[in-house]
């Protein structure tokens, strides 16, 4: 069966495609930052449990307090990019979603359990004693499982060749396990996430927690070590991912496509630079290098997606019926919303200074 015949007809867009691409590329890294911080904070808190001493215990406790916030923002900041993916690639995404429906729905209960466990870890940290570590481990396992489900959907959505399995297995129990890129893709993003999450922890420790010198230093040390070693490991995992990509896609990153090659080159340069600052435990310089690095990585991800889909779908061919006023309404809301958030946080700062 020709996979192209299965691809649903895409619905009309209400703004030029570029706008949705822009919003997607803008908001997806925001989700990544929150998600990385969440996973990283969880992992560092977990590792801290393994170290003896007050400082590490305090560090776990402090990160425990941050975890529910990070889950909330990961979910919220995931909504926006998922919305724009729905707009640009909805017809592909819904198809693969149906194929793996059971797993896709499982995301919700898994997240709810993880979220409440994070709150239990936070509110009952003292009461739980050594059990706290296992509550946290459960949170991490649940969140990593959710990530795996997402990796499956995002990779199956761009592989229509695997879709005809639905005819024999229509119960929503399919995953994309046969895809050679799935595992390296998942490990690549998880390694990156935990590394950036380590960096977040170091940043958190050296700013918010700086009043307690010992705790702050413990957080900086653990966070930066995690970041540096995982980033080093990432060179291996990333290369593996690159090599499992279809040859044509891979070659685009090796000089075949100018944008793809440039992105890879900039990415590698930034990564090497973060390794230097990382092993030197320089928090802020590493943060400034990592912010653009995450954007570069997500652009590369988009290039891979475009290449996978090239034989099947060209976003520029989708009909467009532009209506500007809703777009302006959204932009106005966004500006207003950011303004209100900044104001609220500034009140928080005032309160902090006052006390």
């Amino acid at each position, binding site marked *: 069966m020709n996979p192209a015949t299965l691809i649903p007809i895409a619905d009309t867009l209400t703004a030029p495609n570029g706008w949705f691409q822009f919003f997607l590329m803008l908001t997806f890294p925001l989700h990544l930052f929150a998600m990385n911080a969440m996973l990283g904070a969880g992992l560092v808190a977990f590792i801290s449990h393994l170290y003896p001493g007050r400082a590490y215990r305090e560090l776990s406790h402090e990160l425990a307090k941050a975890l529910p916030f990070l889950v909330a923002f990961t979910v919220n900041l995931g909504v926006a990019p998922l919305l724009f993916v729905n707009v640009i690639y909805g017809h592909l995404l819904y198809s693969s979603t149906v194929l793996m429906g059971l797993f896709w729905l499982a995301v919700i209960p898994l997240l709810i359990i993880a979220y409440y466990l994070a709150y239990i870890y936070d509110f009952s940290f003292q009461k739980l004693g050594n059990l706290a570590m296992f509550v946290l481990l459960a949170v991490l396992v649940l969140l990593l499982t959710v990530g795996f489900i997402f990796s499956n959907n995002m990779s199956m959505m761009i592989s229509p060749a695997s879709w005809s399995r639905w005819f024999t297995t229509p119960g929503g129990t399919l995953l994309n396990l046969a895809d050679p890129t799935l595992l390296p893709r998942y490990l690549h993003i998880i390694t990156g996430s935990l590394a950036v999450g380590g960096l977040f922890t170091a940043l958190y420790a050296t700013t918010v927690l700086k009043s307690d010198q010992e705790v702050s230093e413990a957080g900086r040390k653990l966070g930066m070590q995690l970041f540096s070693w995982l980033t080093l490991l990432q060179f291996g995992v990333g290369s593996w991912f690159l090599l499992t990509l279809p040859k044509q896609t891979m070659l685009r990153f090796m000089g075949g496509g100018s944008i793809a090659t440039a992105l890879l080159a900039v990415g590698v340069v930034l990564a090497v630079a973060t390794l230097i600052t990382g092993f030197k435990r320089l928090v802020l310089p590493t943060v400034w290098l990592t912010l653009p690095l995450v954007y570069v990585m997500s652009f590369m991800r988009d290039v891979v997606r475009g290449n996978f889909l090239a034989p099947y779908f060209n976003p520029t061919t989708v009909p467009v019926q532009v209506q500007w006023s809703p*777009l302006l*309404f959204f932009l106005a809301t*966004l500006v207003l919303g950011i303004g209100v958030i900044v104001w609220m946080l500034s*009140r928080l700062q005032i309160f902090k200074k006052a006390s």
Partner: protein
Amino acid sequence: MNYPVWFVPTFGGGLLIALVAIIHVFVSHFAVGGGFYLVMAERKAIKEKSQAIMDFVKKHTKFFMLLTMVFGGLTGVAIWFVISLIHPAATSLLIHTFVFGWAAEWVFFLVEIVALFVYFYTFGKMDDRTHQTIGWIYFGAAWMSLFLINGIIDFMLTPGSWISNNDFWSGFFNPTFWPSLFFRSFMSFMLAGCYGFLTATFLEDEATRHRMVRYSGTWALVSLILSVPAGWWYLSVLPSPAAKLVSGASPTIKRAVMTGGFSLAVLAGVLIALILLNPKARIRCLIVAVMLSAMGYMGAFEWTREAARRPYVINEVMYSNGILKKDVERINQDGFLKNAKWVQNKEVTETNQLEAGRELFLHQCFACHSLGGFNNDIVSRTQNMSFGAMRKYLATIHEKRYFMPPFVGTDTELKALAAYLTAGLHKKPLTDDAGATGDRGKVLYEENCAACHSADSIKPKMKGWDLAKVRASLDKLPALNPAMPDYTAPSADKDAMAGYLFKLNNPGAAPAVKDQGASLYEENCAACHSMDQIKPKMTGWTRDKIRAALDKLSALNSAMPDYTGTPAEKDAMADYMAQQTGGAK
């Protein structure tokens, strides 16, 4: 047809949507009303300088944070996940049409969680004025979420002029937008009040408890009273088919409306009683009744709104099975299978009829009908129908029962679906002409009634009825049960069916065909000659001779037109005439 179908035979997706939606509806409205309640209660605490009330408010805030942010936020995402799985085409349409509405809603969601975090973690650590402002921001952002989602949800029931102009704002500010916005707002205040009512009874300090019970109770009662005219306004702007469904044409809606009305009465009564009895009001089971009634009232509204747009998922735009209304004519010409993406049989052949029928079922019926499962099981609903009856039923399914979408496709495809539903599911014979021979009344019954009730199930209900009563009831079916559509057939058909139904309880009675024959005679012959006039001319004729004559009337008398009835009708008429003239059978 554009998308694959998540196929778990015994488990229809509608149930899953309902489950997730019900949870989310309660929690999300609760969150909106709760924002308002918290700010107002905090104001009361500040004004009365009561630390006890302030502690009460803070405790509530924590609960709101845990319930609404985690559970509310995630079940909201869950609805999105579930509908994209069960109704991908409709989800895509809603996402594409209202993308910037959704995006703006996301911004308010973000503001809402930041505000709630700040509000909770700064209790007692911030000056009252700023803290109150943060509370107002929380409520404002939550209410704006309701404002935006309300527009999109109402669009599904009343798309209004969007259908012709595809304009975002026409779809958003649709005919039910404002009444629904008011109704939902009051509803959310009421839920929050009821919850405050419940938790206030746990307060230890008696004076504070009395104050908060009275405060929350009044809060809930006022919101409840205000919600009634808003609900009325909402019903009055519904489009007529939806209004008809709501006013009692569907048993499920009727049940929902009754639940709602009953809950409303209980709610109002208990609230008033408790506010009056307030100083002694620690009667928690009564307050639990209040909570449940509030949910019943709200649930009835949501259920009615969902059911009222049947057979559409987006009223007058897209049917529940994802087929666009505007595409129906084209697909009827070209064929459904040829246009569908996720089918293996692109056309119906002699050998693949059942398999193609199964694919048609999957893409056109499975959205609402499970296969041997809980909701709207197709197996039990088709067991009384023959292949012929099913074909006739499918051909006019939407006309006969408005809340079912029409079958979309060619006649051959319709036949394939009918074959799957009868031969495929029940191993029934595929005799093509089942509609033309046999007991006409029985055939008519199968075509028109058996989809909802088998002959066995209807039989006891007519016990003791005489033929006239059975016949008369067929003229006023909706009066017997509002869920039944009118049976708009010629009186000859009704006679035949009445005869068949009468015979169910009276197997020995005179053949029902007599009545059918009589009416056929009246309709076709009596205009020129009464029975009394022609009786003498047929003296001594056998029934067979009469039957044969009916085939060649113009030969008997050139002034007579040929009778063009079916063989079955001619049989019936011959039986009747033979009986009248005393001719032997």
